[in-house]
């Protein structure tokens, strides 16, 4: 029952996301024809041929329903601009993006947990939170360029571009992971602080538990709750971040495809990317809910 409800809610989210993207592009100035023409020759004949090719003369509602109908049947359509099936355009690019996002998420989370647990002393804590603030407020673009110029251009440790093996993944993943780590560390540290004031910590200490064990086994578990709920935010940050990271590092991926598609009102591609992102979001949020059940036994009782 819960599974069905989840599935239903997920589908509704997908539909709303696709519709919102469609409406947004419809409301944007100009038309698909304009963007296909670009700054090239613009004659009525050329226009009419483009309109005919893509059936753009149908009313917006009909086009919308047509999109939905075809989407429902797994047909993502063809890209206006790239003249290839959207399935190919996106299919080629999902894996590099997912790889980067997962690497960045993993790295960010590990960094955050380590930092939150180790920087408990006042001075280390101050240094760490300053660094976190700086990282959170620096545009990823800049972080990427700085990392590139030091580790790639100066020392030649990592290649600058492309999706070519593990070495090429290191710098982009770090660039994307640093701001994530910055936010998560702050949330975790705050959670740990609050947990440490709880009576059960006193009990644990009274049982003779070492401070490290208190932190890792008791306080961290409590601090994880708000952090886990941030998974949805994490998904958005990562998907938004890859747009910039991929451009700076010359990496293939969904970010570049999205940027180009939105700029040129390439409707089929935009819709496919939005639905994919929404699906990732739904999936991650479901995973977060399940994770909460694992972390917090109190929730298990209330759901059953």
């Amino acid at each position: 029952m819960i599974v069905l409800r989840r599935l239903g809610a997920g589908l509704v989210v997908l539909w709303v996301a696709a519709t919102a993207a469609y409406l947004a592009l419809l409301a944007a100035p100009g038309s698909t024809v304009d963007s296909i023409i670009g700054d090239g020759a613009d004659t009525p004949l050329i226009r009419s041929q483009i309109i005919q090719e893509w059936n753009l003369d149908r009313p917006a509602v009909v086009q919308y329903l047509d999109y939905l109908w075809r989407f429902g049947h797994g047909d993502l359509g063809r890209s206006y601009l790239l003249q290839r099936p959207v399935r190919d355009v996106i299919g080629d690019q999902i894996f590099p993006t997912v790889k980067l996002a997962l690497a960045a998420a993993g790295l960010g989370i590990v960094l955050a947990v380590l930092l939150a647990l180790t920087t408990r002393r006042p001075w280390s804590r101050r240094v760490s939170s300053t660094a976190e603030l700086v990282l959170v407020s620096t545009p990823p673009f800049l972080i990427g360029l700085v990392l590139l110029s030091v580790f790639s251009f100066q020392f030649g440790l990592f290649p600058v571009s492309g999706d070519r093996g593990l070495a090429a993944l290191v710098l982009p993943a770090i660039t994307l992971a640093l701001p994530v780590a910055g936010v998560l560390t702050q949330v975790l540290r705050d959670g740990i602080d609050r947990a440490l004031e709880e009576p059960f910590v006193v009990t644990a200490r009274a049982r003779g538990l070492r401070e490290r064990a208190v932190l890792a086994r008791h306080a961290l578990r409590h601090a994880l709750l708000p952090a886990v709920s941030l998974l949805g935010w994490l998904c958005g940050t990562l998907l938004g971040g890859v747009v910039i990271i991929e451009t700076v590092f010359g990496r293939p991926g969904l970010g570049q495809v999205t940027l180009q598609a939105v700029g040129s009102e390439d409707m089929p591609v935009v819709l496919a990317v939005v639905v994919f992102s929404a699906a990732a979001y739904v999936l991650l949020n479901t995973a977060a809910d399940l994770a909460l059940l694992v972390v917090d036994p109190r929730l298990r009782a209330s759901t059953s």
Partner: protein
Amino acid sequence: MRHRFRLATVVTLALLAGCSGGGSGATDEAGAPASGGSLTWAVETEPITLNPHQYAQAKARLLVWNSFEALLTHDDKGGYLPWLATGYEASPDGLAYTLKLRTDVKFSDGTAFDAAAVKANTDLLLSEGYAPTVKAVQLKNLKSVEIVDPATVKYTLTRPDVLILDFLSSPQGAIVSPASLTAAKNLKAGGVELAGTGPFILDRYSPGQELHFKKNPAYNWAPANAGHSGPAYLDEVTYRFLKESSVRVGALTSGQVQVIEGVPATDEPQITGNPTLTLSKGLNSGSAYSYYFNTAHAPFDDIKVRQAFRDALDVGTVLQAVYRGTATRAWSVVGPTSPFYDKTLESTYGNDPARANATLDAAGWATRDSDGFRTKNGKRLTARLVQSAPFVRDRRDILAQTVQAAVKQSAGIDLQVAVVDQGTATKALADGQYEIFDNSRADTDVGAALNLLLTSNGAINRTGVKDPALDGLLDKAVSTGDNSARSASYKELQQKVITTDALIQPLYAPADQIAAAKTVGGLHFEPTAGVPGSAYNVWLGK
């Protein structure tokens, strides 16, 4: 030591002179041409299509000629050289062009190149819905293509149009294996499935990352100006897409790529200050980057205001401020490298604020409002320039702001610059909500650009001028193949639009840059087009 330094300086200077002359760009370090090796070249733009017929990005031109070839090619004097054709012959009335074809050419898919292949390509271009822009612009006067014999084709026109030769030398006129055209799953996107006759074969395309070409060992039909004959020197060449200029430069200085294309003025010192790298520049063909005055309504319907705008502006100083001396000033709408460029226009107008102010006073814009802008009957002297963000390059937005400040200060003209999305820009242009339109075109024959920009029904006519005299001149200039007659028509045209009618404010000649490790030889700019050439004549020094 000192002596060697001097020697090095002399050599470097000589090389720089060679490069700026559009020479081979060979360096001592590269040594004599040698076969073998693989090269990585970072480029700014990922092409939106790899089908040469659909080509629309000047920045993608350097990729096209690696795997595809046209019937003719441009020389550096405004003429044409044989390529896949052995020569052409125009009928006396200018209505038919007969081309003899090479008989020793094979497409990389093994099929033979012949008259039937040429006809299949042209017929496809003429078909509905395949390449609307090519059909409506480049082939607008083409009636039909006939196979005379397997090695001869005849193009018949509806009216004399010498630009058909320009088409036959253009990427859109490249000949693709008809078998691959039929078999291609994504015809308009092109890619590895389309086979050409070029010195390289595209064997891998990783979208968002790179294009990989391997040598075509059977290649033996290079045009006379290609630098050598026989197969290409390089075994492999990879073009990597790096959109960020600083990342491209960093990749070059750290040796991760050997060649880059697109070096903005701000990054030039990093290349020129590095003894292992060279920088060379080529001016693009086509029309110069210019402001076109919209004469359809006030204030630029008055020629006095147009003249005053140009007098108010010191183009040289503005370019120096924005491009730090790396830009080449344009004096005509025709680019300075074109054989039809009218050099006599140089220094004939502009940078005379006193005259600008006097002209505006006389034209009725004598009063000023509280912000210091000129007014007439309570209306401010405003000119709106709308730039479409996706097509702003070379810091043209910054240039516009600098012009804005200059004309405000010198003559009280209110230039309003808006950088907007493509849709908003298109709408502003369609509704006539602009006074200045900015544009440059990279057509190899500037006539193609001028036809679009200046004829009464031109597809990019934004001046609103409908002048039979202009149309007549433009028509006359493309109705003959005689370059001196064409030159005379285009000079008359330039005198008219620049001097007599003051329709245009030319600004600078767009350029391309190549920066490379000195161990790379044979880098060059394509004759006439002025864009980086293909990798055919490029070699790696041992």
